[in-house]
Structures are given as structure tokens and as C-alpha cells.
């Protein structure tokens, strides 16, 4: 059984472009709406691409800004200037 990589984000105006970017870039992502937050699950790997978020946000975005709206995560973190990735492939 595949392990689940997951990000839980606040559900607010700041996080919405990130959520949309994740949904666009991760085929098969499962979205669980909860009061005040959104849990995004996907088998093995979940990625947030800087370029996709910037496109929706209309300004430059540093992947580290995700921490302002990040509630919880599952998976090993792999992070660079262009993306924020949680996954189990190591």
C-alpha cells in the first residue's frame, strides 16, 4: 500500500492560491475540507511549485512562505528555491 504524503493548510485568502496550485500540479490529489483548514493527500508525493503559486498570486513567492499557512505535513521534506515537496521516495 502506498504511503500518503500530505499537507494541511489553513483555508484562508493567503493559502488559497497555494491550494489551487497543489490541485493543479498533483494529479490524483485528494482534498479533504475541514473547518478552517484543508488537508491535501496524495500517494507517495505532493509538490508545491513556486511558479504555479506565483501565477495565481500575482507576485513573487518564496516557497518558505508556505510555513505561514502550514498546519501539518506528512512525508520527508525536500525543499529548494523552486518547489516545496513532501514524499516518501528516499
Amino acid at each position, binding site marked *: 500500500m502506498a504511503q500518503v504524503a500530505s499537507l494541511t493548510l489553513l483555508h484562508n*485568502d493567503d493559502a*488559497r*492560491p497555494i491550494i489551487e496550485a497543489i490541485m493543479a500540479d498533483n494529479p490524483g490529489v485528494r482534498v479533504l*475540507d*475541514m*473547518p478552517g483548514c484543508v488537508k491535501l493527500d496524495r500517494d507517495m508525493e505532493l509538490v508545491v511549485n513556486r511558479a504555479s503559486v506565483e501565477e495565481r*498570486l*500575482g*507576485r513573487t513567492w518564496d516557497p518558505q512562505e508556505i510555513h505561514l499557512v502550514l498546519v501539518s505535513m506528512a512525508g520527508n521534506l525536500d525543499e529548494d528555491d523552486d518547489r516545496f515537496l513532501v514524499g516518501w521516495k528516499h
Partner: protein
Amino acid sequence: MTIQIKTIDLEPKRQTFGHIARRLGGDKPASRYQEATLDVQATANFHYKPLWEAEYWQYDTRKTAVVMEDWYKPLDPRQFYYAAYNIARANMNQAVERNFSFIEERGLIEKLSAEAKAQIERGLLPMRHLHWGSNMNMTEITQRGYGTAVTAPCIFSAGDHLGMAQIISRVGLELDGQTGVSLDRAKETWLGDAAWQGARKLIEDTFVERDFFQLYVAQTLAVNGVLFDMAYKHADAAWRDGAIPVAMLTEFMSDWRAEESRWSDHVVKTVASESDANKKLVSEWARLGRFARRMRRAKRPRRARVRSVCRSNRGDKHYGASRFAHASAQ
């Protein structure tokens, strides 16, 4: 005893306003930019038709020759609404304040050569009048334009120009020991110095432009794209030993220009690509129109001025902005 914590998910009846949902094609959460922009301007049920320009309604798409099927197509890629705009500008202004105190503490303007001070007074300070004119133009587009998507960023831009005029004024106050005499002299330069009359005529002629999108093209492509870039990007050599302090004190303008052109270029591009007729009109206004011709006339004396002050004897006949910087560096 076990305590079970339960959460109740209250599903909101609506995610956004009805008029936004119709735009988005469904009841989805909308960004604040979308909610503050889309279809905000009134379009119907006006009670009083204006007595002035009786052929038009208050908001009327016929106030420009370009035709858009939907004036909410040219959206702002920066997604500025009131809060986002103010937060962005407050951050930029913090940098301005820091740069001014840096320059003041070290007396970097006081220590400049008399020649550099004279150059800044004559070449930079009159720009505040150009900014004031640009403020007038953007305000005019706001009141004559159609659709909040276009008009809201225009009033932000108008505010930016007032702010930049104030920054220039503060540079003047640094030059003259906070007395304001340099600003009075710079106004005389703006009104009387032959070198500035091309730029002054250009901006004053745009004041009477009635077609709001033609005015938009003139302001963003001609005034912003040529005159401001020339003053803030290509004139470093003209300020002599003052190049670095001036670059610091006008950092706001460089940042603003890089950011605003993302929006203004996008708007011009969107309107031009709507139809062949629009493209023809916009190209005409941008390149072959009377503003561009006037612009070439406006640039000539300014370039000549900086060159003559710098005692350049080169007789080149090129009017490009890079030549301007090159010539003044001689």
C-alpha cells in the same frame, strides 16, 4: 472517562457574491481581488443623465475608440485591491525612509560637488511637475474609464505619482538645507528652461486628451516608458558624483516602474489583442501617433541640455535613451 472531540463543519450557503460566481462560472471561493474588482462599477439604472457631454452616460464604453466586449478582461496581474496595494507601497516606502536617513546621517547630499548639485536641481527636481501631470492623467482615466478592472489600478497609479513627486521634493529639500528654494528654482526651470519645454508640452497636451484609452497609452507607454525611464534609468552619468545617492533616493521609482509596467503592458496587450481594429488603433497611438512624434521632439532638447552641461563636444545624431546616457558620460 473518554472525551471525544467532535468538529462540526458548517458549510457556508454561498462561497462568494452572486455576481462574482457568475463570472467564475460557479459558486467557488473568490480572492479578495476578484471580489473587490469584478463588476463593481455600476452599469445601469442611473437616475440622472449628465448635462455635460449629454451624448454619454456617466460610465460609457464610447468614451474611447477601442471596443472591448468585456472591460473586465484587462485584469491586473498584480491583483491589487485596496489592502494589497497599500501593503505593497508601505513596504516600498519603508525602504525610501531608510535610504533618506542613510543619506542624511552621512551627509551624502551635502558633500556633493556644486556641479552635481546644480545638475540634480536642473535635471531631476523638475520631474515632480511631470509626476503631478501624470497624477492628473491617471485620475482622469479613472473618472472617464470604464470598468473597475481598469479604473481601480489607475487611481492607485495616480497615488503613486503623488508619492514620487513628494520623494523628488524631499531630494530638493536635502539639496537646499530644508528651505525649499531649490524647488522654487526647479519650478522656474520647468516653466522657462528651453530643455524642459518639450516634456512640458507633451504632458500638458495629454491633459486635453478626451479618449481615455488613448490617454492611457500615452501616459503608460510614452510618459512612463520613455521620459521616466530616461530620468531614472539612463541618466546616472548626468548626476556626476551624485549618481549613487540619487540612485538610492529614487529606488522607489525603479521598483515602481518594474512593477507597474507588468500591469500597464498587460492592459495594453489585452486591449490590442481583442480585435484587429483595436490593434490598429493602439499601435497608431503607441508608435505612429502624435504622442510618439511629440516624444521625439520632447527628448531632443533634454538630451542636448545634459550634454551641454557636461561639456560634451560629440556631435552624434542619435536620440536613443542609451545614447543619451552614453553622451552624457563623455
